[in-house]
């Protein structure tokens, strides 16, 4: 039997020189691959800003939701109790439930806002996961490893934003158009938005950001003062959901 250490040596990066003579693959290799963004998009702290005013101009628009859910094979159960959502819309007064100012500009409470996982800088969900199936990456993305999730739902209890959904049933029959390039989940697994980690790795912006016809979503590196998201955040007043919980949500709402 090959042991783990040897295996890693053989397969890992830059390794396997000793075995190079044995390996018979003849796939072409390229030293400098400029054509493909192998590096992907990188950041020190990914974050999103949502222009509530722009988004609310088309309250029935669901382009971002459809794009995300189609891309990620998110099932559509008709029963709201089984609902799985990565990104969804709700009324302002539901989204900002602890907003204490009751004298808001007229209509604001009924504006439609877009909700998704906040990829909190201090995520309570990751602390409680017994299997490290969810964790905060170095670039701030609160990632999911569905291979590891045992479905204990601690993370659902820990998330104060309702960002996580649980698959009570096998989701496969409830996915209309399967995207073969992305996996589905199984019964007993928690899922949520991953800031399109797999798209970022290929140099693409998140599916919702690309899909928004109103260009109401800004996505970028908070640690870069020149980034577009820092630009909009410095020009417009923004709020975050339940900041008093010190989870440090990284989805900003431009109001």
């Amino acid at each position, binding site marked *: 039997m090959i042991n783990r250490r040897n295996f*890693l040596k053989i397969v890992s990066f830059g390794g396997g020189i000793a075995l190079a003579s044995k390996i018979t*693959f*003849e796939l072409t290799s*390229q030293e400098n691959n400029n054509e*493909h963004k*192998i590096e992907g998009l990188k950041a020190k702290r990914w974050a999103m800003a949502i222009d509530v005013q722009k988004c609310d101009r088309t309250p029935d628009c669901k382009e971002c939701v459809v794009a995300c859910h189609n891309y990620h094979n998110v099932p559509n159960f008709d029963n709201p109790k089984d609902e799985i959502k990565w990104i969804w819309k709700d009324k302002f007064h539901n989204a900002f439930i602890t907003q204490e100012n009751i004298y808001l500009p007229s209509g604001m409470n009924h504006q439609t806002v877009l909700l998704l996982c906040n990829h909190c800088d201090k995520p309570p969900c990751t602390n409680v996961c017994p299997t490290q199936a969810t964790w905060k990456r170095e670039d701030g993305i609160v990632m999911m490893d569905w*291979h590891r999730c045992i479905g204990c739902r601690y993370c659902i209890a820990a998330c104060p934003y309702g960002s996580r959904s649980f698959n009570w049933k096998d989701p496969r029959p409830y996915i209309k158009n399967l*995207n073969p390039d992305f996996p589905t989940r199984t019964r007993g697994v928690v899922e949520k938005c991953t800031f399109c980690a797999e798209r970022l790795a290929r140099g693409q912006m998140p599916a919702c950001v690309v899909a928004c016809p109103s260009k109401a979503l800004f996505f970028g590196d908070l640690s870069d003062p020149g980034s577009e998201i820092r630009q909009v955040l410095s020009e417009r007043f923004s709020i975050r959901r339940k900041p008093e919980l010190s989870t440090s949500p990284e989805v900003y709402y431009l109001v």
Partner: protein
Amino acid sequence: MKLYDGWKIILGLIVFFAFFSLPVWINLSSAQSRVKPQLEYPKDSKQCVENKDYMNHYHMNLLNFWRDSVVRMNYRYVVRNGVVLTHNGKPLEMSLTLACLKCHNNKQKFCDQCHNYLDVKPYCWDCHIEPKGGLK
């Protein structure tokens, strides 16, 4: 030396071993076990990321390693000696569906052949979507 009640003991032993090995006999006599795996290899691609012998024995380790590299460490491409491997001019992702299955596009005629023969049931397919045979 005399074996008291010898025939009873021998008979008992024969009955015992016949009964004990029953699953083997059932298996051998059933039609299923006589179907040897018949792997269909991709016609238009000739190289794999590793040699055939290695893949025969260790493809599961390779896939586990790929899985952890991609999901947990965010390393996405197959790198050998510091160089990204390409396939049809595209960098090769460490991915069951985006790499392996692009060539081995018929699960029934490839993966299932050995898995069924050995009665192993990998749960890859609970989530990863199998190509509808003959995918380009």
